[in-house]
């Protein structure tokens, strides 16, 4: 159990979805819930489900919080549990990445205070999507088909390594879409505080190693790009 670096608290529908994706990517994870009746369901899906009392700090510590757990998801259907768990985990470990889901608007702020690294709001996401479908159905179809979907167009992040040819270049000089069938969406400059800068903001960055590019394109094209620039 100790070597598992990803913990999913709350065996909800979201947990099943996330679990399925992680499974597909070959990542090991552990689900945790207090309801033993969920065991057969987890077994059927091939998930590892631990039945334990997560409200106890000792239990959390024994699960590896503060040691080797890097990612924690709080996915309960009840906001009260999510907020409490986020707070307990944050108190034990200030570095762990906590991803929380929420079900009410008020809880977003509470989760932020409690120390969640990022908050997924299914209702906001769903609402936004319906809104997009009505106002700009074409765009949503395209996004659905490409980024979320069936077509082989993915979004990927590429970290610039020290020995890459890109290291030290200006962004304008390496605009990769001209030779590769992919789009550079933006980048994360580790010297800047802001997490993500869209390419359309027009800043001409100098790329350093450790900077991260986010691209969209066919996986094969992205692979080719990576190979060419020894990333």
């Amino acid at each position, binding site marked *: 159990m100790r070597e598992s670096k990803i913990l999913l608290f709350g065996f909800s529908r979201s947990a099943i979805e996330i679990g399925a994706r992680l499974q597909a990517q070959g990542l090991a994870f552990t689900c945790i819930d207090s309801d033993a009746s969920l065991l057969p369901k987890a077994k059927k899906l091939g998930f590892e489900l631990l039945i334990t009392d997560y409200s106890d700090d000792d239990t959390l510590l024994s699960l590896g919080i503060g040691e080797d757990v890097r990612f924690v998801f709080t996915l309960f259907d009840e906001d009260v549990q999510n907020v409490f768990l986020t707070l307990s985990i944050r108190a034990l470990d200030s570095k762990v990445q906590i991803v929380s889901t929420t079900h009410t608007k008020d809880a977003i702020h509470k989760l932020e205070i409690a120390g969640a690294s990022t908050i997924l709001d299914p209702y906001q996401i769903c609402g936004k999507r319906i809104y997009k479908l*009505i106002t700009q159905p074409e765009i*949503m179809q395209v996004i659905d088909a490409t980024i979320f979907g069936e077509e082989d167009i993915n979004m990927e992040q590429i970290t610039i390594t020290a020995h890459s040819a890109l290291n030290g270049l200006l962004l304008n000089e390496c605009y990769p879409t001209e030779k590769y069938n992919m789009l550079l969406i933006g980048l994360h400059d580790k010297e800047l505080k802001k997490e993500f800068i869209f390419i359309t903001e027009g800043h001409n960055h100098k790329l350093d190693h450790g900077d991260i590019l986010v691209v969209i394109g066919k996986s094969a094209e992205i692979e080719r790009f990576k190979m060419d620039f020894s990333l």
Partner: protein
Amino acid sequence: MGYFTSFFVRLAYFIEASSRYHRVKEFCRTLLEYQHSRLKFYFDIFMVVLVVISVLFLLYEVKHPDGHPYLDAFVQFSLIVFIIEYLLRFWIYSDSHKLFLERYDYAINNNLPFSLGHTLWAILKKKVEYIISPLAIIDLLAILPSYRPLRFLRIFLLFRIFKLFRYARSMKTFTAIITEKKFELFTLAIFASFVIFTGSSAIYIFETHQNPKINTLFDAVYWAIVTMGTVGYGDIVPVTTEGMVVAMILIILGVATLAFLTSIIVSSFQNKLIELKESRLFSEVDKLENYIVICGYGRVGEVVAKMLHEDGYKLVIIDNDDEKIKLAQQRGLIGIVADASKSRILGELGVGKRASQIICATNSDELNVFITLTARSLSKQIIIIARVIKNTHKRKYFLAGANYAFSADETIGLMGAQYITQPISYTALDEMLTENTGVIFDMLPIHEHAYFVGQPLEALELKEKRLMLFGILRKEATPSFQFNPSPNFILQMHDILIIMGRKHHINVLRKQNDKGVMR
């Protein structure tokens, strides 16, 4: 078949076949009967004005028995209108020829003897049904006294005021209340008449000889009612002790009866008021065109409604929780408390007619699928967007006829997994989807007269404009979406560019596109 029978059969078939007959009758129905028709609305206003003026004239005549030439002409005119209206209503109340043909066909098909007498009797019965309906009687009484020999019925001209019942919907509600509470009111009326009867006989027995004011039984009844109604004019007062006791009892019972009556009417009025409000909402919906129906005002519905409302879309929200609907109404939205699973409700809301889209955003898959199915059965064109709760049910939504169906959990799954492996690309995705940073996805349709028709992509100078082309949508081509096309891609009419960038940068491009054909 007798001569008369064959004549009637031919006449009925002739009417049935005449399109003009149907048109005219339909027009009259729109004018007089159909609740939501514009025509009826104007007609009603016209009639109300006519009624009010003719009653005012009646009052004028009290002091000026000679009349006034202009007003006389007006009275004649209004009388003619009333008569025509009465006859038209009489005509459209039932379709006699249909009734006739129904019976005739039934007899022929089942080899039964056809009785002309019975059939005509049935038709007549139907028409008599109209004549004796309360509103028709009022109409008739409003007309008859104008006939000279029936001048003594003048007071019935006041019945014209009652005609207003026909034209004002709120008046109808009042009648509806009285009919609804028939039983309670009837019981109360019996009780009241019993009390009045006892009281008046008592006072009559006790005081006829002692009290000079009470000479007849009518005096006694008048006194009893005045006392019981807590009016007590004081023109007749009991003079004996027995009479006073009767008066006291009558007063107490009278107050009780009135209280009863008030509570019956008020309580039923309150119930009716909700219905009245609802019907007002429905008529508000009737006026809308091209609106979006949102089923379920939970968190998803709320988020969607808020954003669409800000963009000026017309929305109609239904939810069976009146707390939520109250909230929606406070935010200036049209909200109706209703069970969306009832197809009648969706039909009344114009799904299948004027609604262009329907969003199923309740928190139950069963309900969402059911609404999807209902909406699809009502209309082939309507765009149905459904929120899937449990991802395994997604297929069912498409089977039920949804255009789009998706679950939030699926997106969460994708984003959650991405967060672990690629946190930066997760941030990018999050910002692209939420558009919090001001960078948005937008589309730019290349219309027929657009500046960019026939131009290669290079000419758009997207990079200089700080825009990024995600791809191009060309409906006829397969695949319709071309991701990241090359710079020498030639734009055609009806292409749609999917662009990413800041709003004002996109607007610069849009303006250039709209400038018109290149020289």
